[in-house]
């Protein structure tokens, strides 16, 4: 346990190195976010009316959080490959801190997701994104996104630990992440959805994060979403972190 910090740094650096050496990940970090912004901006931008702000301003918060949510998939897949290749098993035979395997990776993945957000802000600005808020609002929005990104990345890690098969994981993640990001406030106002969907869409963690960031970057009201989003992220971590720790401790004891 005493090596958590040092080992986390080592594995964080490994993940960062992977990012720069893997064209797939680099595309995921830069090109995909740019495409999201352009597609949503120009495909839906003309069709959807939002009261109180422009659709671009409304949309961007949704795209940030959607992109961050897909980061869970990156975490899950890369950890699953480490399992599949026996790399995790090698780590398990070393006198190192096991939680560092996940902590190092989730920190790297969270930073990567936030980097993508910056890319999207720039592209968004070019196509008409004009957030309204003060520096503190933006800082708060960043805080909400960092926390959400970190939490969602742990969910990805948890999935990989219980389903260490990259193919199965890919299928499953889509089944989980797609509904969460689309049945949400990310792209449309949930008030336009059927009642059952609406209740889910308004309260689930993706929507809370979207609403929080949206309220901090437009004139739309927060309605408690900032606190809710923080609570959701902390709640997710409170469940995921000990579960991962428990799963790792179980290795060699079953």
């Amino acid at each position: 346990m005493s090596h958590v910090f040092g080992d986390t740094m080592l594995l964080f650096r490994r993940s960062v190195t992977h990012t720069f050496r893997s064209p797939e990940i680099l595309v995921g970090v830069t090109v995909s976010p740019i495409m999201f912004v352009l597609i949503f901006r120009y495909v839906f931008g003309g069709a959807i009316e939002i009261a109180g702000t422009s659709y671009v301003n409304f949309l961007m918060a949704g795209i940030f959080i959607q992109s961050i949510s897909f980061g869970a998939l990156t975490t899950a897949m890369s950890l699953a490959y480490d399992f599949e290749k026996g790399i995790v098993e090698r780590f398990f035979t070393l006198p190192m801190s096991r939680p560092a395997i996940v902590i190092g990776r989730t920190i790297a993945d969270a930073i990567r997701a936030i980097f993508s957000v910056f890319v999207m802000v720039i592209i968004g600005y070019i196509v008409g994104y004009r957030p309204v808020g003060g520096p503190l609002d933006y800082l708060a929005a960043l805080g909400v996104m960092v926390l959400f990104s970190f939490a969602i990345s742990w969910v990805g890690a948890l999935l990989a630990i219980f389903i260490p098969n990259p193919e199965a994981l890919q299928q499953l993640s889509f089944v989980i992440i797609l509904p969460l990001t689309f049945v949400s406030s990310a792209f449309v106002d949930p008030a336009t959805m059927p009642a059952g969907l609406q209740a889910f869409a308004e309260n689930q963690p993706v929507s809370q994060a979207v609403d929080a960031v949206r309220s901090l970057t437009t004139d739309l009201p927060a309605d408690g979403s900032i606190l809710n989003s923080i609570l959701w992220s902390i709640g997710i971590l409170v469940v995921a972190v000990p579960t991962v720790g428990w799963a790792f401790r179980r290795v060699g004891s079953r």
Partner: protein
Amino acid sequence: MTTVTSETAIRASGLTKSFGDVKAVVGVDIEVPRATVTAILGPNGAGKTTVVRMLTTLLKIDAGTAEVGGVNVAKDPNAARLKIGLTGQDTAVDELLTGRENLILIARLTRLSKQEAIRRADELLTRFDLHEAADRNAGTYSGGMRRRLDLAASMIADPEVLFLDEPTTGLDPRSRIDIWKKIEELVAGGTTVLLTTQYLDEADELADDIVVIDHGTVIARGTSDELKDRVGGQRLEFKVSGPEALDHAAEKLEAQNVEIVGRDEREHRITVALTEGATQVARLIDSLEFEGVKIEEVFVHRPTLDDVFLTLTGQHVATDEEESLS
């Protein structure tokens, strides 16, 4: 328990492990003297990996005890890990890192300082003939190079005991011999090795002692020579023209007191154990031809795992799909 003398590097008794209804390993005893090599020989699904995973703290031992370097692996897994190096069945190499970065990472996670890690990586890259490729991504390495890198990684902490799970499976003959050489060097340097293999020739080449397992239990053990005495030396295999010729040949061979170790009715093949070397081959062929047996093909080969099984259990190595899950 008797006290562990420093002469015994691995001492396991009654190792047992089940996965649900599958009894993967049942009551396996292994004792490996320091600086020697023991091979666990067995077909796919025999329980080799399960034994290795128990001894390397990766699996809980259901029953039995295991000590590695004098440390009880169940009671003190962390202390055991300091004595153990493992090269698993899958090549655990990070393809996006260079060979050097792979080794430095493992060295740092093994608690070496930065300078020590760099020095150690350099030393191992040289020792495992990877110096030229050291700064290339491991993803560009050949199978043999990956295995060598994997082996180097498990030697970072200069472990007392090295576990190698099928170290040459899937390698071309040349790389295989390279790996053998490296293993021999390590043992000459005082490392104790427990390896698993499906190949009798590999066990024969490397191991001082061989433990043959099947369906999770030990079916034979001994030195390579002892096993070969039981299994016999080279094999001579005849393919004859048909079923009658097969019966005829068998009868004539038995009349000469030659041990028939295999018979394939479908392919009309008959296999005998050679006891007297090459001249015996000519003599046997001549005598069969003389008796009017039409021989279509002749093969001479060293005993395989299948021959060992045939001799020890009277059965071929199981090859059904179910049996070959590894």
